[in-house]
C-alpha cells in the first residue's frame, strides 16, 4: 500500500512537472493537418512547410525569444468533426493559436475561440466575414479573404477583355469552402454585367466530372473560375482539356493552383491559370535555411525537392505569420511565455512590411501584411500565375481587391452572423 502511495505521488509529480515544463519551456502551436484521406496530397505539403519553419527557428535561433516552439500536429483527415475533437484536445494546454486548415472546421470552432481565448488564424480561407475585427476579435484570415480574392480574379478577367455581357462559369467543391464566394458573384454579376453559371461538384464526384464539363460545354461560358481542392483540381483540368475548353480562360483560386494539381499532368495543363499570394521557388534565404537546418539533416518529413513548391511555401508562410505574432506578443507583454490572448494582440499588431520581409529572408515573397484591430484580413492583393507545362510562372503584378465592393458585404455578413448569437464577444477599435 505504501509503495502504491509513493508510486502514485511520483506519477502525479511527474505529470505536474511535465505540464509545468510544457507551459514554461515551449510555445505550443497546434496545427490541424490532413496527411491521410482524399486531400492528403495537399495537406501533407502544407503541413511540412508549416512544421519545417518552426523546426528551423528552433535549430537556428533557439526558438522565438529564446523559447522553443512545439509545432504539434493533430490529424483531421479534413473532417470537420475530427477537427473539433482536435480543438477540444488542446483545451487547457495553453495553445497559442489554432490553424484549422479547413473552412468546415473553422466554422465549427469559430464560436469557441472567444470562450477559450485562443485566436484562430485561417490564412486565406475560412469565413470571409471574420475579416471584421470588431465583430470577430478572435479570428483572423490574413493576408486576404475569399471574397477579396474573388474580386481580384474578376478584376483580372476585366483586364483581359472585360466582363460585361460575359458568362462566367463557377466550378466549385460543394462544401462550405467552395460556396463561400457565391455572395460576391451574386452581388457583382448584375453590377458588372456578367452572368454566372454555377457548377457544384460534390466531394464524392470530384474525380468524376465529365457531366459537369459537358454542362459547361453546353452553356459555353467565356471563362471558368474554380474553387477546388484535392483531386478535384487535376480532374477538372483534364476534363477542361478533354472538352476543348481553352485553359487560358480557366482560372483557379489559390487552393487550385499548386504543383500537386498540375505536375502529374505536365504539358496537358499548359496555359491553366491560378491566383496566388505566395511565391514559388527556393530563392529565399528563409527557405534556404529550412533546407539547411531541417530538410537536409533529415529532421523533416519533407523530401528534397518539395521546398519551393506552392503549398510547401504557403504552409511556411502560415507559420511565418504565427511566429511573427508570437514575437510581437513577447515584445508587447515583456513575457517570454505568452498566452493565446497575448498572441491575439500580436496578430493585431504584426507589421510584415517589405523591410521586415527582407529581414526574415522573404523579400518579394508576398505582399505586406499589416495587422490591425479592425481589419483582420489585411485586404491583401493577389497575383496570377500560369502553368507553363513544367512549372508555375507569375504573369501579373499584384492585383488589389475591390475594397469598395467587399467591405460593405463583409460588414453585412458579420452583422448577420452574430445577429442570432446572444452574448457574442466583440471589441471596439479606434
Amino acid at each position, binding site marked *: 500500500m505504501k509503495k502504491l502511495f509513493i508510486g502514485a505521488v511520483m506519477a502525479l509529480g511527474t505529470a505536474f512537472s511535465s505540464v509545468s515544463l510544457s507551459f514554461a519551456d515551449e510555445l505550443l502551436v497546434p496545427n490541424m493537418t490532413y496527411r*491521410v484521406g482524399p*486531400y*492528403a496530397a495537399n495537406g501533407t505539403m502544407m503541413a511540412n512547410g508549416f512544421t519545417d519553419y518552426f523546426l528551423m527557428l528552433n535549430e537556428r535561433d533557439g526558438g522565438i525569444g529564446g523559447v522553443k516552439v512545439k509545432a504539434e500536429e493533430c490529424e483531421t483527415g479534413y473532417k470537420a468533426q475530427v477537427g473539433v475533437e482536435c480543438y477540444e484536445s488542446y483545451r487547457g494546454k495553453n495553445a497559442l493559436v489554432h490553424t484549422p486548415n479547413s473552412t468546415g472546421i473553422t466554422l465549427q470552432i469559430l464560436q469557441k475561440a472567444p470562450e477559450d481565448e485562443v485566436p484562430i488564424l485561417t490564412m486565406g480561407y475560412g469565413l470571409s466575414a471574420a475579416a471584421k475585427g470588431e465583430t470577430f476579435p478572435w479570428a483572423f484570415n490574413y493576408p486576404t479573404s475569399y471574397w477579396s480574392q474573388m474580386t481580384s480574379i474578376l478584376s483580372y478577367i476585366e483586364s483581359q477583355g472585360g466582363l460585361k455581357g460575359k458568362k462566367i462559369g463557377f466550378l466549385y467543391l*460543394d462544401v462550405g469552402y467552395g460556396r463561400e464566394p457565391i455572395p460576391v458573384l451574386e452581388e457583382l454579376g448584375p453590377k458588372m454585367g456578367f452572368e454566372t453559371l454555377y457548377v457544384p461538384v460534390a466531394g464524392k*464526384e470530384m*474525380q468524376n466530372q465529365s457531366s*459537369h464539363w459537358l454542362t459547361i460545354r*453546353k452553356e459555353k461560358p467565356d471563362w471558368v473560375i474554380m474553387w477546388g481542392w484535392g483531386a478535384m483540381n487535376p*480532374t477538372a483540368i483534364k476534363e477542361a482539356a478533354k472538352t476543348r475548353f481553352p485553359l487560358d480562360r480557366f482560372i483557379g483560386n489559390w487552393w487550385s493552383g499548386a504543383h500537386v494539381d498540375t505536375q502529374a499532368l505536365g504539358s496537358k495543363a499548359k496555359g491553366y491559370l491560378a491566383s496566388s499570394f505566395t511565391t514559388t521557388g527556393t530563392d529565399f534565404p528563409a527557405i534556404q535555411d529550412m533546407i539547411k537546418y531541417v530538410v537536409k539533416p533529415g529532421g523533416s518529413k519533407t523530401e528534397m525537392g518539395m521546398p519551393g513548391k506552392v503549398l510547401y511555401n504557403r504552409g511556411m508562410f502560415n507559420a511565418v505569420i504565427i511566429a511573427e505574432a508570437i514575437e510581437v506578443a513577447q515584445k508587447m507583454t515583456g513575457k517570454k511565455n505568452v498566452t493565446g490572448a497575448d498572441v491575439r494582440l500580436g496578430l493585431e499588431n504584426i507589421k510584415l512590411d517589405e523591410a521586415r520581409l527582407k529581414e526574415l529572408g522573404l523579400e518579394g515573397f508576398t505582399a505586406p501584411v499589416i495587422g490591425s484591430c479592425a481589419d483582420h484580413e489585411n485586404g491583401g492583393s493577389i497575383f496570377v500565375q500560369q502553368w507553363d507545362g513544367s512549372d508555375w510562372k507569375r504573369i501579373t503584378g499584384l492585383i488589389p481587391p475591390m475594397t469598395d465592393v467587399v467591405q460593405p458585404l463583409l460588414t453585412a455578413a458579420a452583422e448577420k452572423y452574430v445577429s442570432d448569437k446572444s452574448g457574442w464577444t466583440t471589441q471596439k477599435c479606434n
Partner: protein
Amino acid sequence: MEILYAILIAPFVEMGAYPDLFIQALWDGFVAGTLYGLIALGFVLIFKASGVFNFSQPILVVLAALSLVSFYKLGIPAWISVILVLIMFYILAWLVERLILRQLVNQDGNILFMSTIGLTFIIIGAAQWIFGGVPSAMIVNELGFPNGSLEWPMFGGGVYFEMIDVSAAVIAVIMIVILAVFFSKTKIGRGLRAVADDHQAALSVGISLNQIWVIVWFVAGIVALVTGIFWGARSDVSFALQIIGFKALPVLIIGGFTSIQGAIIGGLIIGLGEKIFEIYWGPLLGSGVEGWFAYVIALVFLLYRPQGLFGDKLIERV
C-alpha cells in the same frame, strides 16, 4: 405550364438541337458505367465467396494504383511492375485468408464486415507510410495504351473519344465477360457459389474454403488494379481514388450483390442515367445532381426490388 415544359419538353428539344452533345453524354455515360461496373465487380466477387461486403475494396484500388506507379518510379519496366503488383496481391490474398478469414469461419456476417473495415485502416496506414501523399500520374502510355483522342465532327460540333476511355471500356467489357464465364462454367466458380451459400456444407463436400478465398481475393485484386489504372488515368493516382470506390454501392443495389452481369448492367444504368440527368435536368434542380442521383435510383430499387435486377432473392423459413 412553364415548369412542365422545362421538365417534359425542353430537354428533348435540346437533345435534338445539339445531337453531338447528346452523343458525347451517351459515350461518357457508357465509359463511366463500365468503370462503375468494374468497381462493383470487386465487391461482387468477394460477396459471392463469403457473403461479406468488402469495405476494403476501394482502398485495394488505391493500393494497386500506388504500387504500380511506385514500382515504375523505381526504374522497373511498366509491365514487370504490373506483374509485381499481381504477386503482391496474391500474397495479400493469402495473408487475408490466413490471418483474418480463416479465424472467422462461420462467424456472423457483421463480424466479417467489421474485419474488412479493420483491414482498410491497416492498408491506409501502411500505404501512407510507404508511398507518402504526393499524387502521381498513371503510367498509361508506358503500359502501351494509346494516347490522344478521336474527333467525330457532326452538326457543326463534334464528339470526342479519348483513346484511354476507349481502352478502358474495351478492357472492362472483356474482363467482365471472362470473369462471368470463369465463375459460371468452371469448377472453381461452382465451388465459389457453394461456399457463398453455406461454408460448412461446402466444406463437407470437399470444397477447399481456404483455396477459394485466396483465389477470390486475388481476382478482386486484379479487378482493383484494372480499376486503379483507368480511374487513375482520368484523375491522378492518390488516396482520393478511394472515394470513387464507394460509387459501387448504388450499382450493387441495382444489379444485385451476387451477380457479375448485374454489376455491369447496374453500372451502365447509373453511368448513363446520371450523365443524361445532370446535363438535361440538373440545371432545373440547381445542378450537382450527380452526387445523389445514383442513390435515388438505388432507393427505388430497394423499395420495389431489394435483391436488385439479378441478385438472389433471400428466402428465410421460420
